[in-house]
């Protein structure tokens, strides 16, 4: 019997959606017991009914995310149980806390995992390496393994029954480093609106867009489509858009129905963020650009010429 523990966060009372991706991944294992460690405030454990979760360890009373107190709270929750595999989402919280809790407990650690399976030798995980140009399989040689799953690489678990979950409250008092790192304010940024992670349509621009001003072509198209604007790292580094718009392995991982890549070459590090997109369209002057090995539809042309025509046409038919 493999005991899989998924870790969820609920700083505003609602459990994070990616927790259900973790449960989805855990369910592909046979002969397992599934538990949840939930950290946050006024956590509604009813949300977990029906997913095959046996027990929930609740560490309540932490209303806002602060890294040091959340780290200690998860550790406290893990102390209450014996896990074989601990799953966390590789979102910004998971990537911050996962490695540290593994190291403190002396567990093995695998990050950015896209597949995992139990074998005769033990747990085997698959993760992209060399910026996604290759994929490696690693065998876990430690006893317990902490695994950070790449967001959106697994489908969310579906509700299958109404069996109640057992709940154990874990008491926790913040201490130690808790006051040393303090989030003091959220900073306003351009590109508010629909979060990229949730957007159904994304128009993304790269170095080929050429300037900050020219991103207005992409904004107009996105507006007509009711979508959001994203970018490659090169467009961020050029100073044309905010880093919060970066899509890819080290930016947002997105899963829109339609992804329109404008002046983006299709580096594996960028494409790692869009592998869950349903339809990819690429507009690029270079017919040899790698983006065309990922795109379903391609237009080889200058976007300066194509985008205004496309925006006008869509305005006609969508209004």
């Amino acid at each position: 019997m493999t005991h899989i523990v998924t870790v969820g966060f609920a700083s505003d009372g609602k459990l994070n959606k990616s927790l259900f991706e973790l449960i989805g991944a855990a369910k592909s294992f046979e002969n397992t017991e599934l538990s949840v460690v939930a950290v946050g405030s006024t956590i509604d454990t009813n949300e977990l009914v029906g997913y095959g979760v046996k027990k929930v360890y609740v560490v309540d009373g932490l209303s806002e995310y602060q890294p040091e107190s959340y780290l200690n709270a998860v550790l406290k929750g893990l102390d209450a149980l014996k896990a074989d595999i601990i799953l966390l989402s590789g979102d910004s919280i998971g990537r911050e806390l996962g490695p540290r809790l593994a190291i403190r407990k002396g567990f093995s650690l695998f990050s950015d995992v896209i597949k995992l399976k139990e074998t005769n030798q033990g747990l085997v995980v698959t993760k992209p390496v060399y910026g996604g140009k290759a994929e490696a399989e690693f065998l876990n040689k430690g006893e317990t393994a902490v695994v950070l799953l790449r967001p959106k690489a697994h489908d969310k678990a579906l509700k299958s029954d109404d069996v109640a979950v057992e709940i154990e409250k874990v008491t926790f008092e913040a201490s130690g480093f808790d006051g040393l790192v303090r989030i003091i304010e959220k900073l306003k940024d351009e590109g508010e609106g629909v979060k990229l992670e949730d957007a159904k349509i994304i128009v993304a621009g790269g170095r080929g867009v050429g300037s900050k001003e020219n991103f207005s072509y992409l904004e107009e198209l996105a507006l007509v489509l009711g979508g959001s604007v994203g970018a490659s790292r090169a467009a961020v580094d050029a100073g044309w858009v905010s880093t919060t718009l970066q899509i890819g392995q080290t930016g947002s991982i997105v899963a829109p129905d339609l992804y329109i890549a404008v002046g983006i070459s299709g580096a594996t590090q960028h494409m790692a963020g869009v592998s869950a997109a349903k339809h990819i369209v690429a507009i690029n002057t270079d017919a040899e650009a790698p983006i065309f090995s990922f795109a379903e539809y391609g237009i080889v042309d200058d976007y300066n010429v194509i985008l205004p025509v496309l925006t006008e046409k869509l305005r006609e038919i969508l209004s």
Partner: protein
Amino acid sequence: MKIAVCIKQIMDPEISPRDFKIDADAKNAVLGKNPLVISTFDENALEVALQYVEKNSGEITVFTYGVAKSEDALRKALAMKADNAVLLESTKEAGWDSYQTGKVLAEGLKKHGPFDLVFFGRQAGDSDAGIVGAVVAEELGLPLVSFVTTINQKDDKVFFDRVTDEGRERVEASPPLAVTVTNDEGNTPRIPKVKDIMMANRKQISKESVGELPASDFMEIISLDIPSSDVVCEFLDGNEPADKVNRLVEKLKESKVL
């Protein structure tokens, strides 16, 4: 402030997929004629440290754990205007276990420290693990501020701007600290001047041997592959831009995204 920046030399992560080859038996990428560079986010980390020192004050020591030729990465960091460089020299390329790398770096940092701020890139461009910064933080007993883009100081308070899935936020934290850096428009690495490259070549680098590390207790790589894509792109051609656009719109209607 006494500042350390940990950097890693890797095969250029920006090479085209055509130039990327693997040795499936050795389970490694083949360097071939590809260039070696400082891993991108480590350069961003050095840039953030340099900007901090320019605005305030401090001394920067760069550390790397690697084989002899990693010295080139340290020379480049010195040319970018880091003050000192330490090579924790191994006789063999580092393996996949980030714990081991982190522990070696932590030992080096202890010996040359203590440091007020210890910087890392958020992840290396080859292993893509994002673990080393956290290992060192734990080994040295330091709190960690991650995905930082900029550092500011007001009186004796240090503020870190960072990026999360929710957007940007500002964090207040007191050194000593470990910091991992992610890219934004303000920390694009500077390009060293020719005169500084020449100066850097004459600088002393402190070299310490760490020998060869044992096999990992935690993990073993069992396969390495280049994933294949089965997507065949349908190119939408036409004489006029409007023809291409019309064909695209038809396709999008067929696939029901419009």
